[in-house]
């Protein structure tokens, strides 16, 4: 996998998840008690043996830079290769929209690197994929481009890239669709191709007026390439809306999903915080929940996820909720169907309740 350069494109449209992304990129939304979304893609790359990863910085780069830092926690603080930050282009190009211009303005970085292949990903997916199998598949099929897809098991709405494949994996159609059904083959926005194909595609498409990598680079030019689909049959979630975010978190409460994502041979790395183990006190009562280190629990918690360093005081009841880092839930408060962003303080005896399919969101640093 030394021949593969990973790219994580953090330029996603995040209009559907605005509450949680007011001050951060979608890829750095806290997830599953101690992670950020980008950890899943980045760890999959590292575990697959990729040691050169370029991160296309989003418009609000601060939260991504703060999280990834030197790349050391992902073993990417290296003298050769390692983590590269690719900043968005200057203002002079603001008249063109879409993500293609960001690739175009970083073309020299891709061209100067020594890797033969490019693995293009988005940072807003939850999965744990072994990309070395993808490379083997790509080499065996002699594909120009290989896309990774997952087969949906239930109906879901939201913008998805859907593909159709022949029996040998050859992609026969790619389209953006508003809904998926049981059996639909859904792209994970992961593309593997030789760098020369990638560079040619970006250059030609952008210079001929293209704006969007997927629409103008792939879908419109699909006939020009030999595209194959590679199935990842593990857990996949695309966090592109608040509902998807809430659902994906709740999915982790299924022990099989928790095991598959985190406890297999390939760990998910994240920024290390050195928190102490969870302290359960005399009055604690926790059921069916994920509790991250650094929490102190004196109250009741059910079907919920507590991030690092949350304090749950006596008499508190938390149900079906996601409580992010360093929240302080004080005595006697009742919390149900709520997403608390970081550093929220819920003072004594408050009652917050969202709907099961429409969780209440409490934004960062708020005191209630």
């Amino acid at each position, binding site marked *: 996998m030394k021949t593969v350069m990973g790219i994580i494109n953090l330029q996603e449209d995040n209009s559907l998840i605005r509450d949680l992304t007011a001050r951060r990129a979608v890829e750095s939304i806290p997830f599953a008690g101690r992670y950020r979304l980008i950890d899943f893609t980045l760890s999959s790359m590292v575990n697959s043996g990729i040691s050169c990863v370029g991160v296309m910085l989003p418009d609000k780069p601060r939260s991504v830079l703060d999280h990834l830092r030197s790349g050391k926690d992902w073993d990417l603080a290296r003298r050769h290769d390692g983590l590269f930050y690719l900043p968005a282009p200057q203002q002079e190009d603001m008249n063109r929209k879409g993500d293609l211009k960001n690739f175009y303005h970083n073309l020299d970085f891709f061209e100067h690197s020594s890797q033969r292949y490019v693995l293009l990903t988005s940072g807003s997916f939850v999965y744990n994929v072994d990309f070395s199998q993808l490379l083997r598949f790509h080499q065996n099929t002699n594909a120009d481009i290989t896309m990774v897809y997952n087969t949906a098991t239930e109906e879901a709405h939201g913008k998805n890239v859907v593909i159709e494949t022949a029996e040998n994996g050859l992609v026969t159609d790619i389209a953006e669709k508003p809904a998926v059904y049981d059996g639909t083959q859904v792209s994970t926005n992961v593309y593997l191709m030789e760098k020369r194909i990638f560079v040619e595609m970006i250059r030609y498409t952008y210079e001929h007026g293209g704006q969007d990598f997927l629409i103008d680079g792939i879908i419109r030019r699909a006939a020009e390439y030999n595209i194959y689909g590679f199935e990842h049959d593990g857990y996949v979630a695309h966090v592109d809306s608040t509902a998807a975010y809430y659902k994906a978190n709740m999915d982790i409460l299924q*022990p099989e999903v928790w095991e598959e994502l985190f*406890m297999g041979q390939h760990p998910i790395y994240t920024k290390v915080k*050195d*928190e102490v183990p*969870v302290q359960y006190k005399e009055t*604690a009562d926790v*059921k*069916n929940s994920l509790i991250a*280190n650094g929490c102190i629990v004196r109250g009741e918690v059910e079907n919920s996820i507590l991030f690092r360093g949350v304090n749950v005081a006596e008499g508190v009841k938390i149900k079906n909720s996601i409580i992010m880092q360093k929240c302080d839930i004080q005595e006697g408060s009742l919390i149900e169907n709520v997403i608390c962003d970081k550093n929220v303080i819920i003072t004594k005896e408050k009652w917050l309740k969202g709907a099961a399919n429409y969780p209440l969101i409490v934004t960062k640093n708020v005191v209630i």
Partner: protein
Amino acid sequence: MRKTECLAMILAGGQGSRLGALTKKIAKPAVPFGGKYRIIDFPLSNCANSGIEKVGVLTQYRPLELHNYLASGSAWDLDKKDGGVFILPPYAREKGAEWYRGTADAIYQNLNFIDLADPDYVLILSGDHIYTMDYSWMLDAHKMNKAEATIGVIEVPWDEAPRFGIMNTDKDGRIEDFEEKPAKPKSNLASMGIYIFNKNFLKKYLEDDAKDETSSHDFGKNIIPKMLADKARLYSYAFDGYWKDVGTIESLWQANMDLLQDVPPFELNGDWKIFSSNPSMPPHFVGPDAKIKNSMVSEGSMVLGEVENSVIFPGVRIGKGAKVTNSVVMPSTVIRENAVVDYAIIAQNCEIAEGAKVAGEKGAITVVAEGETVESEAGSKQAG
């Protein structure tokens, strides 16, 4: 190597035989403690937090496993260009190698390492204690006193004093007199086994001591009394926080239990962080029928049964209906359905079979050694 102001040397060389089954496969400094740490995390984190960037760890047993745990020292942020953690086992010289014959001999055999680091001061630490301490304050005191040696001391209950090295000091803290395990102690200031020496001063005494065939090459028994006899400037430095020897099964168990107090005797999570090599595991999962009380539980564990008054390390599985009480369960151990564990320390990678019982009692903690399986009938283990 660039010059270092203060070099720390951690004496982690004891065979740890008092920890019995727990040190069969791992070196004593690597014994797990407190739900996610290893014993050596405490002196190493103290060093890192005190700004001491170069640390030698003297061990005779299983240096490779320790090397592997400490790796480059990056977990403690000790992987600086001119710093780092150095494992120092006794190594072969032209004449072959010998075990360290005592604490002083261990340092003596590594004088070439000390010379290479070229510090002004050498801080000598023991690898057996759990405590958080800012050594830079002690170093400041050492400099202000213009001391040649400074010894960390702590007040112990008078009735326990005969078990320690006891210091008698004048009102400025200068040590007048030192007695190793005195029957009738004149004070209750016990040596913590923490020493700061001026480097050249230390070197001279170590070289003299090495030539002395009657010496048992021990700091407390030989080096310190010799220094005092020479009227050297030895000062005490008083520490009044939590400080616990974890060199025996009972004290290791008790120190773990101390952390479960409603207000723990010392803060693991304050500004003075205890760093540890991180296992990259998710938040632990608590099952629908689990009960957890008065306990610490760490990442990557899955608790489906009951846990009370216990410390659970990363990656532990506790099955449905299992009961773990008053116990310490170390990493990656599996406790299957309906098993019972009480007053026990279960080491790493053990398996307690379905319905099996491991029960000790207060003052007689049962230990299951690393990698063992306790079967449900014949194998159920009693205190001993």
